[in-house]
């Protein structure tokens, strides 16, 4: 969907359009979070009376997604770089991390961080923090593959040109390769984050009061599954749509070559 991007006045440049879209969609997201309670309160039974809880659940879902999403990009970059390292000591842990995360269900990972990790390392994280850590590690492993593919898609000649100008390997990565790789990786990264928004519902199993958990509680309390499920689904749809809009705009912003 590129809905918002095409709404702006014809005379605007691509950069103006995408900036406006980023600002508008961001503002929309904040507005949804602030106004969700009041808007939901306008709805009839069984939603109206539970509006405050549903709004709080929505906020938790967004917080989980944004925190884990941002941290997951950082983890993904580190893991991607480590995986491409010529040093085995660096490459193997990254390989193991990506392999184990991608090969096990997210549900198991969430349960592992909450129940098993405290037995191994002496820290007990809250339910929210456990969920955030599990989601970060999960999306990070998928991001690593997306970013690695992006890095590999940058032509060899770019590294050669940079190195022949005297830039160090690190400068070459930061100034030349990564900006190009990130742009290539952006569409799959966005897919991962939209998936993350939906996957955050698994935090439910360790008792995090995110949207799907709240929805379930409201359903149990009111015995009206259809309107409750429709409402939670609608909120998820609105959130994923706004997220997709923002990322589409960022992509357009980075698309210096104007291929779209």
């Amino acid at each position, binding site marked *: 969907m590129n809905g918002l991007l095409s709404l702006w006045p014809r005379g605007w440049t691509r950069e103006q359009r995408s900036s406006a879209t980023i600002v508008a969609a961001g503002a929309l997201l904040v507005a949804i979070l602030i106004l969700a309670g009041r808007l939901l309160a306008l709805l009839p039974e069984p939603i109206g009376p539970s509006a405050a809880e549903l709004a709080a659940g929505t906020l938790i879902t967004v917080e989980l997604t944004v925190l884990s999403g941002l941290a997951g990009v950082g983890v993904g970059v580190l893991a991607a770089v480590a995986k491409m390292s010529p040093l085995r000591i660096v490459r193997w842990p990254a390989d193991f991390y990506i392999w184990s995360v991608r090969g096990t269900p997210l549900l198991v990972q969430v349960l592992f961080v909450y129940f098993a990790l405290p037995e191994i390392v002496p820290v007990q994280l809250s339910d929210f923090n456990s969920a955030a850590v599990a989601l970060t590690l999960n999306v990070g492993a998928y991001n690593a593959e997306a970013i690695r593919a992006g890095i590999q898609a940058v032509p060899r*000649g770019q590294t050669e040109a940079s190195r022949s100008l*005297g830039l160090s390997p690190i400068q070459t990565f930061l*100034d030349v390769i990564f900006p190009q790789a990130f742009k290539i990786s952006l569409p799959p990264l966005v897919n991962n984050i939209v998936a993350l928004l939906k996957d955050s519902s698994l935090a439910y199993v360790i008792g995090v009061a995110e949207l799907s958990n709240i929805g379930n509680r409201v359903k149990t309390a009111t015995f009206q599954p259809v309107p409750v499920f429709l409402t939670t689904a609608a909120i998820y749809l609105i959130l994923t749509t706004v997220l997709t809009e923002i990322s589409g705009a960022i992509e357009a912003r980075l698309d210096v070559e104007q291929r779209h």
Partner: protein
Amino acid sequence: MSTAPAHARSPLITAELVNKHFGPAHVLRDVTTSFFQGEVAVIIGASGSGKSTFLRTLNRLEKHDSGRIVVDGIALTDDVKNLDAIRREVGMVFQQFNLFPHLSALENVTLAPRRVRKTPRAEARQKALELLARVGLADHAHKHPHQLSGGQQQRVAIARSLAMQPKVMLFDEPTSALDPEMINEVLDVMKDLARSGMTMVVVTHEMRFAREVGDRILFFDHGQLLQEAPPAQFFDAQQNDRIRAFLGQISH
């Protein structure tokens, strides 16, 4: 282009018995030669004869397997410090330009001086604008590579290399990827550069350029440096049958 005979000056680059393999393929065989300060050396030869590989060993984009290469007094080894020092002194221009597509022409030119030489932003910018003007692109400084023609991109690439004030410039078929009408604008910039006294090693199929601008022609054949000679002797008094055959093909 030079006035004094080349051998009277000190060599900037020497290659001694350089060998290179790619797997079982022996692509450079005992290549021995020197490049002198202010000299324009032109490398020609059939496709696959090792011209690019040889050029790329001179700034160690390729490692040689045996033999010795000395650039500006520094031997090319695995020593990373040496390598960075040499790459700063040796500019390279590629067939495919290899401009950085996410940066404007100006940023392409300022990147290395700012990062490697730590030139302040304003000074780097000033220098870059001068260089872009020198290659005839003063009005295009803020364009991105995709907004420039191939010839313009290659001229930006030349300016980008010059910004590091290299002692020698390597060119690997700089005009081979260009539409015919753009070849001359790039060759003109290179002629200017030669006239200014830049030491140049140029791999090219442009025989007119080789004859006009070259001080010396090096002919590669199956990984061997088969012959080096001044252009007049090379083109007009060629004794070697293989080279004559090659020149015959090229001129058609």
